């Protein structure tokens, strides 16, 4: 067998691509010819070095793939974490805004707690006490009771007291029933006759109740959530 053919057979033998016929031919040669036997043994030893290097490189490649996978997983878990935080912040923001635009909250933000812009001493002690009772009932969210107390004060001879009491009654009604058509008419009437700064406050309140953000939180989201809530529960 010529040298080239023998080298090809040994290569195929080492790579495992040798055909069965060629293998048996080579094996016969190995047994019969010591020179071929030595050549094959030397080739196998050299091939082992190459195989070791090949495996070393493959192992490095596998480590690289592991590293990439870990980075990819880390990237996704970071993104999921960030999205979760954003979602929670969004839900918390919606919750706060929804609370901010409730009728009770609007009423409590706009209440006139201190009617006497002059000196308290100028008014009767029982009037001051009645105002304090009404205010406390309002702040305690007992709006029905607050209305009862403010009705008495709305007949007060001092117009500033009377107007403040009427304003607070409107707010208490808003907190109880929301902006009904009758309530809106009452607010319009009040706005026309009220002095400053109550007039400005009334206009501002009217503007708020017509605003998109109020409608969004009070009407749309509340209605949708109301229909969703039983299903969630």
């Amino acid at each position: 067998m010529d040298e080239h053919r023998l080298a090809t057979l040994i290569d195929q033998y080492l790579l495992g691509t040798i055909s069965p016929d060629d293998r048996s031919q080579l094996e016969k040669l190995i047994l019969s010819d010591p020179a071929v036997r030595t050549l094959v043994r030397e080739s196998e030893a050299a091939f082992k070095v190459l195989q070791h290097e090949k495996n070393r490189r493959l192992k490095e490649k596998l480590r690289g793939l592991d590293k990439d996978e870990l980075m990819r997983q880390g990237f996704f878990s970071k993104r999921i974490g960030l999205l979760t935080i954003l979602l929670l912040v969004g839900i918390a923001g919606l919750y706060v805004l929804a609370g901010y635009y409730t009728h009770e909250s609007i009423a409590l933000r706009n209440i006139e707690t201190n009617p006497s812009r002059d000196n308290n001493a100028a008014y009767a002690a029982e009037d001051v006490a009645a105002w304090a009772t009404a205010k406390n009932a309002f702040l305690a969210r007992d709006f029905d009771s607050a209305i009862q107390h403010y009705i008495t004060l709305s007949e007060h001879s001092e117009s500033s007291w009377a107007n403040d009491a009427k304003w607070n009654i409107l707010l208490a009604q808003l907190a109880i029933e929301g902006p009904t058509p009758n309530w809106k008419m009452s607010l319009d009437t009040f706005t026309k006759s009220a002095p400053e700064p109550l007039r400005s406050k009334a206009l501002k309140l009217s503007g708020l109740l017509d605003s998109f953000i109020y409608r969004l939180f009070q009407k749309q989201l509340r209605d949708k959530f109301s229909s969703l809530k039983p299903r969630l529960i």
Partner: protein
Amino acid sequence: MNHLHCHIFLRDDDYLREIRAGGSRAETAISCLYLKHRKRTYSYLRTLISKHGEFNGFPDDLVHDSFIIMIEKIQQDTAVVRSLAGYWIGIGKMLFLNQLKKDKRIVLVGDVVEKYGYEVEFQHSLVQDHEENEKMEAAFLKLGPRCREILMLWINQYTMLEIAGMMHLSNVSMARKIKYECFKKLKEIVNSGNISGV
């Protein structure tokens, strides 16, 4: 040429075909196969290791070594494979048990959790002869970069035509000649360096 891309719906037969084809097709298939089953294999072998606190190897080594052995067996066409994932895990488990036996930490392992059908005995081991490895690495490094490159391409079963193209050689005969010379040189280095044969 039927190039393989990392597609999740590829079957084991596709991987076997590509890996046995050698060259760049095999390289792609090997990476894809590793990525496809690595999570499952890691999970299984970690569980196995956690049940044997006396084992002081690393799951990474176990996973990598068993994968390399599997690829070798596939390329040598000696394996009858029903499931590549099972085959990989089976080899990993045998490596693990061989290691435990070698360390004489156990006499008998009875808690085989899952049978994959590949629990055949073989002589591979996690523990390698570092001195021998160093000698082999040193022998390889004695070759020039060009020889190293051509021999690596050859052992990865690139065709001479591909090798000629990748190494910007004039023709296939030139590639074959350079490979022959380089392999001859390596044989001389190995002989002179007294590296044990197979």
